[in-house]
Each structure stands twice: as C-alpha cells, then as structure tokens.
C-alpha cells in the first residue's frame, strides 16, 4: 500500500510538472512574438482638441460587451485609443459569440456591462421591453451627435416607442453581387444594371456553358444555429425590388401578412434563381447543396472559375482574404462586387443593409462620454484607420479616403448617395421568433427539402407572435 501511495504521488507530480513545463514553454513563445505582432500600428499623434468636451476622465473605466471577437475585436480596441489617450479613461473590452444568450443573464443578475453593442434592432426592442429599468435612454451629447451625423432613418432604428435607446455604430451594405472581373472580361459579359439584364446574363452563362460544370450562381446559407439567414437577405433584397420599399416596411412591421401575394411574388423570383437547377450551385452541387454549404464558403467557386455570381454583403470581403491572402478585392482585381440591380436603372434604387447599435446600462459621465465618442466622426475615422477592410459606418462626416478597401468605399458611396433608398435588414427588425427563428428555418426547408412557396410563407405567418 505504501508503495502505491508513493507512486501516486510521483505520478501526480509528473503530471503537474508536465503541465507546468508546457505552460512555461507556451508563455515563453508568446513573449517572444509580442514585438513583431500585427497589433502594431503607427502611433500617429492625436489631436486632443475634439476630445476636450468629454472632460478629464483619468482613472475611470468603461466596460464594453459585444459580439465582435478575434481580429475584429483588436481593431475595435485600437479605435478607442485616441479617446483613452486624450481623456485618460480606460475601456475594458469583452467580446463573446454567446453575447445574445449572456447579455440577459448579466442584466438579470445585476452585472450588466456599461456599454453593449446590439447587432439587431429586433433584439434591442425585446431588451427594452424585458428590462425597461436596466437599459438607459441615450444621453444628450450622444443624441445630438446622432441628429447631426446620421440620417433620420438611422435614428429610428435605435428608437423604441419614441425614445432613443441606441446609437448607430458600424454599418454594412448587403445588396451586392460578388463576381470575378477577369472572368466577366474574358467571357465578354457586362455588369447588369437591371433585374432583367441580370436574368438575361444568367441565361447567357447557362448557354455558354452547355456542359453544366460552370453555373451562373453559387450560394451557401449554412451558419450554425443561424442557418438560413443568407436566404432571408436574398428574399428581403428581392422584396425591395419587386414590391418596393413601402411594401417592404409594411411587411417588416407586419402591417401586411407575411404571406401577402406581393411577398409570394418576391419569393417566386428568388426561387427562379436559387431553386433553378440550371443556375445553381456552381462548383458545389445541386440546389439542396445550398443548404449544406457554409455561407462563408458560398462564394469560393468564383475563384476556381466554376461560378460567376454570388450575392452576399460587403463584409464577405474578409472571407476572400481568409481563402487566400493574395486575392485582390478590387474592380481591377480577382474579385469584386456590383450593386444587386433593381427593376430599372433609373428609378429609385433600393439598398439593403445592416449595422450594430450601442446601448448603455450606466449613466456615469465617462459612460455617457464614451457613447458620445462612438457617434462622433472622430471615432468613425479612427475606426476606419484601424481597419484594413470590412468596416464602414453611416456617419455622414466619415472621411471616405480613410476607408482602406475599395468595397468599403463603394459601400459608403452607395450608403450616402441619395438616389439609393436604404432599408435595414428586415429579419433583424422582425420579432426574434420570426427574424431569428421561423424565417431562417423555413427558408432552409424551402431549399433543403424543396418545401413549396405557399407552405413556407404560411408557416412563417403562423409563427408571428400575436401581441
């Protein structure tokens, strides 16, 4: 017995020692890398004049809780540096992909963060309804900034029952079709400017590739538990085009039923592309393969020359560099995007987009100051400087030349161009039971098991909460 006890001790020791040694090795490796990491940015001297309004916040701390993680989180934190430098405040950043589940837990237990970034207006609405005491109306400084620097509609997205609860942060544009400029040039295709031209181009591509190995469209709607959302974006984009922005608003606010004939027409139009065996799914498989392909991979066949077009938002550009860091995303590069065309080139052009919103759970001066900073052009410009690609805001004073990637510049141009009518992503505005529930799952069924248009629309209509 004594011997076995002894050997337990030795073994335990060995395990602990092994673990400790590993930790030391890893720590050592981590240390040596710090100097050359990508976190280095050129420390430009900051002009603190614009920050005097926030006062001296030396020693104060603001906690921020968001859905943004990894590299994008680093870029977020970099954009706070001028504020921290000039006011002396410290921003404690925390990102989690479980944000939407964890935020209500924190609010309930009284440990809400000072600031949270809400990715959908629908989620904001339910937060305000569920925790009216925890979530605070936007302070005066930030509210004034929203009036000055943002359009009326962006203010509306953060407003619940007439009170402004959230200020806009980032934005993205979803009405884009990704394509390969060189493939288009080789085949002699022009970028379509109307829906009819888009369909004609698709037919042309089918005709030019009789073997059927190259197809006009590729898509993927897989996204873990959110599988289906890229299909809802497709649908929203087409509703905007076939039924128009007014009907779109009624549809999103449920003033017309979800299975309204105009919506059914739009779904049929989506089906004429996404459920057309001749059009999809280039380089991946048949129609049902759309449901099993991750949205992050959906456009990759373009690079292999197996597919011509992929409809996806501006933020998809980050995926190209993940696929191959050498891919050039530009009008004269390997991949680029064109505006998803509307009914006609002259009439008002609908633009679908999304964005995040900032809410505060504390009214301490430093929290209010930080929220005001996030609505200011200084922050938008700092963020643009810190982000190589994949970010823009709807701030009117954002310096466009600071946006570093061509697609971000194009997005910002469209966003601030008056001839484009902006509409916020509908599924983000709908109640969560639909917008983050049945709309996703039914669109997935629609593709995966070829569920009929009417059955899909009826099922979503039936799931709309009755209050």
């Amino acid at each position: 017995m004594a011997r076995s006890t002894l050997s337990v001790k030795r073994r335990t020791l060995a395990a602990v020692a092994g673990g400790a040694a590993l930790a030391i090795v890893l720590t050592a490796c981590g240390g040596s890398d710090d100097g050359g990491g990508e976190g280095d940015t050129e420390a430009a001297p900051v002009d603190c004049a614009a920050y005097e309004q926030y006062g001296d916040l030396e020693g104060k701390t603001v906690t921020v809780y968001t859905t943004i993680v990894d590299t994008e989180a680093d870029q977020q934190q970099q954009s706070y540096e001028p504020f921290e430098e000039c006011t002396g405040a410290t921003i404690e950043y925390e990102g989690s992909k479980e944000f939407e589940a964890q935020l209500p837990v924190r609010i309930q237990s009284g440990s809400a963060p000072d600031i949270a970034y809400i990715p959908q207006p629908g989620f904001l609405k339910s937060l305000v309804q569920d925790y009216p005491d925890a979530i605070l109306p936007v302070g005066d400084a930030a509210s004034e900034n929203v009036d000055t620097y943002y359009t009326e509609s962006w203010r509306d997205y953060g407003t619940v029952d007439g009170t402004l609860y959230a200020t806009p942060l980032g934005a993205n544009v979803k009405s884009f079709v990704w394509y390969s400029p060189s493939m288009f040039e080789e085949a002699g295709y022009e970028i379509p400017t109307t829906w009819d031209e888009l369909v004609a181009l698709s037919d042309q591509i089918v005709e030019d590739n009789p073997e059927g190995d190259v197809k006009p469209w590729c898509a993927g709607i897989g996204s873990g538990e959110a599988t289906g959302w890229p299909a809802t974006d497709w649908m929203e984009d087409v509703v905007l085009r076939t039924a128009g922005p007014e009907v779109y608003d009624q549809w999103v606010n449920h003033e017309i039923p979800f299975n309204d004939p105009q919506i059914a027409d739009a779904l049929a139009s989506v089906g004429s592309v996404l459920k057309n065996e001749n059009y999809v799914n280039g380089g991946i498989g048949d129609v049902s393969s759309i449901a099993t392909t991750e949205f992050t991979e959906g456009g990759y066949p373009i690079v292999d020359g197996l597919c011509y077009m992929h409809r996806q938002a501006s933020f998809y550009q980050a995926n190209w560099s993940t696929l191959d860091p050498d891919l050039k995303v530009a009008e004269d590069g390997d991949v680029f995007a064109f505006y998803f065309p509307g009914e006609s080139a002259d009439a008002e052009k609908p633009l679908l987009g999304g964005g995040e919103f900032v809410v505060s759970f504390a009214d301490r001066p430093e929290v209010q100051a930080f929220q005001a900073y996030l609505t200011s052009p200084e922050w938008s410009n700092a963020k643009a400087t810190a982000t190589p690609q994949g970010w823009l805001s709807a701030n009117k004073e954002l310096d466009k030349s600071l946006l570093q990637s061509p697609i971000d510049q194009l997005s910002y141009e469209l966003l601030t161009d008056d001839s484009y009518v902006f509409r916020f992503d509908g599924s983000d505005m709908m109640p969560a039971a639909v917008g983050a529930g049945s709309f996703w799952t039914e669109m997935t069924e629609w593709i995966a098991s070829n569920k009929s248009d009417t059955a899909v629309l009826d099922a979503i209509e039936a799931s709309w909460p009755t209050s």
Partner: protein
Amino acid sequence: MSIPIPDTTIVDETPEQGKGVGKLDRLDRRAGALRRTTSSKSASIIAIVLAVLWTIPTFGLLVTSFRPAREIRRTGWWTAFSNPEFTLENYSDALYGSSTDFASYLVNSFVITLPAVIIPITLALLAAYAFAWIDFRGRNILFVAVFALQIVPIQVTLVPLLSQYVNWGIDGSFWPIWLSHSIFALPLAIFLLHNFMKDIPRELVEAARVDGAGHVRIFFTVLMPLLVPAIAAFGIFQFLWVWNDLLVALTFGSARDVAPITVRLAELSGSRGASWHLLPAGAFIAIIVPVIVFLALQRYFVRGLLAGSVKG
C-alpha cells in the same frame, strides 16, 4: 487454443506460466475459461476494429490540423495521403493569430482548474467521512438530500448564483468560477467518496479507535491511504470537467483576465466564423493537458471506477 476443453481438464498449459497440473480449484478454472473467451481472436479483432473506428474522427482532426487552410476548405483530410502537404501555420495562427495571447488563457485554465478540483475534493472528503463514520441524527435524510442535489440542472442556478456573486462584490474575479465549480461538483463527490469509505472494513476503523485514535487521526492515517485511488479517480473526472467547461466560464468569468482556454477556442473562428480552419489546431492545443493528466493517472482511474462497485 480455441479447442473446447472439458471442465475437469486443465486449461492453460503454456510453459511460461508453468502452473501446476490438475490441481486447480474451481475458481482458477473459471478464471482460465474467462481468460480464454476474452482473449479469443475474434473478440480481439472486434475490439481492435471498434478502437480504430472510434479513433478515426480524432485522427482525421489531427491530420486536418496540420493541413493548409486552402486544402482544409476544399478537400477531406483523407486526401492528404495522396497529396501530402502539411504546415504548422494553423498552430501558429491559433496561438498568436490575434493580439490575444493564447498562453495567458492557458494559464487561466490552470488557475481555474486546480482550486476547482482541490476545493470540492477536500470538502467532500470531510463530508463523506462524517456521513460514513460519525453517527448523528438525520444522517440518512441529509445524505439523500445531498445526493438529490445532483438532479438540479446547473442552468437554473446560473442567474441566482451570479446575482449573489454580484451582491458579494466578487464578480469578475476567479472566485465565482472556483465556487461554482465546487458547488456543482460536491453532490457527486460526496456520494462517490462516501461509498468508498463505507467499503473500508469496519474492523479497521474500530481497531484504530481501540488504540485510542480520534476522528482526525483515523481520517488521516487509516482512511486516507486507502482512499487514494478514489481521490485520484474523482480528481480526473473533475479535472476533465472543469478543463473542458465553457458554460460556467462564460457566465461567471468571461472577462478577459479570468477567461480559460475554452472561451478563447469558442471565439477562434472569428465573428462570422470565417477562420474555422483554425479549430482543429486549437482543439489539439487545448487537449494536450487533459491527455497528459489522463495518461499519468489512468491506472487509478480504472481502479477507482472498480473499487467502489465490488465488495470483498
């Protein structure tokens, strides 16, 4: 080897064993028969096939973790054999990919895991001793109540516990995680260790008592040495559970300075999941420590599992 042998004849005559002939009692004969059935060729083959099938996904993950991102996206891991192309890039990206330092998460994991294993074992040993060897009123009812606590799903306790930690002003430190893991582990720990202690012959404890030993002495000099396999077994259980836990860590300690490695793993693929090719590498970095612990302590793990189940 596989020729059936009548009950009365001897079983195993391999020269190395050199056992006596014809003098086996019934128990030995039965053991021999058992050995023969369990060591039959077909059984071995089935076991090996199962083991291989069971290991294939892990093996695939290992191969994948060394393949270039582009290949991971395009083809399955099995194509790596016909077209071998390997890289350590995934590992370096997972470790140093963003400014977040993987090593500090690893250290956090240790800081969380060690107390979260030691605290419940210490408390459970004391409680189990009391339940097993001290007679007091309501002992059985209390024991059943403790055991019944296992039924409470931890999800329902998250919000009340967190509010309590906020009231005490300890949220954001390691304490909520240590305390929560201890709370969740105690019912099972007490139950397991109590059963082990009950199995120790009463005579042993009574003999010690006759010699004048008190509870403290009995606990440390008589029972503790006998309990080592049980403690090691539960220690491994608890270690693996805490090391792999994400829920408790996310709820009670996802602030960056106290977040363990699982929290980092969960965000490794990026906000929109674009870099999922890093996940196999991340998974293998994260399992190194549990594998070391398991291999080092596995004898006690197996023995501990058996020790509670059979008397005599």
